[in-house]
């Protein structure tokens, strides 16, 4: 793994293992994830703007699962926090968390661009 000032957004060894150590397949999954996560993020943000916390939780749940499968640990963590807050009806800090999640997903996107299958 390349040494970087920031921690890599995915645990590459774990992620690759999950993809059966098939780099090409892992790359395909990352692309799938980004496409889906961006759509969900849009849904999440609009749900947040109308205060539909159940929908916020549901969309975060989807991102959480996908992120876990790719070993995108930080993204999974943030999505998990959003989901549990959404579920318990605790709206505080959700906007900030959604921003964090969006930023983290873009970091995964940057990583994906640098990652060759």
């Amino acid at each position, binding site marked *: 793994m390349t040494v970087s000032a920031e921690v890599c957004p995915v645990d590459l060894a774990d992620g690759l293992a999950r993809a059966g150590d098939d780099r090409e397949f892992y790359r395909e999954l990352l692309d799938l994830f980004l496409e889906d996560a961006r759509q969900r993020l849009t849904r999440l943000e609009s749900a947040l703007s109308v205060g539909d916390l159940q929908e916020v939780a549901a969309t975060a749940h989807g991102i959480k*699962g996908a992120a876990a499968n790719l070993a995108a640990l930080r993204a999974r963590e943030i999505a998990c926090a959003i989901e549990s807050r959404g579920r318990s009806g605790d709206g505080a800090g959700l906007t900030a968390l959604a921003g964090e999640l969006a930023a983290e997903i873009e970091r995964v996107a940057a990583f994906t661009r640098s990652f060759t299958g």
Partner: protein
Amino acid sequence: MRILVVEDEPVSRRMLTAAVARMGYDVVAAADGREAWDVLRAEQIGLVVTDWMMPEMDGLQLVQKIRGCELGRYVYVILLTSRSESSDAAEALEAGADDFVGKPWHRDELMARLTAGRRILDLQAALQEKNLLLERMTRVDGLTGIGNRRHFDEEYRRAFELARRFQRFLSVAMIDIDRFKAYNDRFGHEAGDNALRAVAAAIDETVRTADHAFRYGGEEFSCVFPETDASGAIIVADRLRAAVERLAIGHPENLPSGIVTISVGVSTLQPPPRVGAEDLLRAADQALYRAKNDGRNRTVALTPEELFAPR
């Protein structure tokens, strides 16, 4: 074995599908419970791996739907649960899931769970096959291989009910091998059994496709002829007699022919029906009795009305 993967989130769906395919299974994917249900009804799916939280119909509802409906086969269901919530597992099993795998799932664990599922399904299939065989054995006469008395009772009752409801003709024949006791006494039980087998086969081969022949007991046989009036039944009965004569099994005690012959009693239900199933059968029995008294190796037909209709 064909496996259905149900998962709304595309990355997981793709990963699951790829993993299961790589394990050598035939995979179909669905994005939610409703889509999964459509696939289950259309295809021969043995095992389902389903996510829990999904839009439309979730995994739990899908399991309940699978268990609540007769798909004609057992479907093994593995629910994907969140590891963090331990009560999930109990709820999944209670809803009817066979097993659960925590998310994120691991390839080796999933593979082991699928293998376990397949083992159960194989056992289930073997058991079902044995049950079918046993079920068939309870309806087949061990000696002759044709339907037994129990099978006759079911078939006759069903045929009678249909004839009564739809106002159709129904004929029934009672058949008895002439002087069979004397044959047994002279040639022994083994020869007697062989004769029974040969006669049963001759009757079974001679009746028409829609008709059914049964061993009623001892040296007695019975036939059900749906949609057949009295003259039709007599024609078939005489054909049965001729078929047994053609076997030409020597029977010196059975004169004048000196071969194994049968007597047949026939009775016909004529629409509109005025007698019950028991009376029709008793009339056929009476007809058989008369065929014996009239000299054997012949067919006698009696209408049930002349015997049993209220006067």
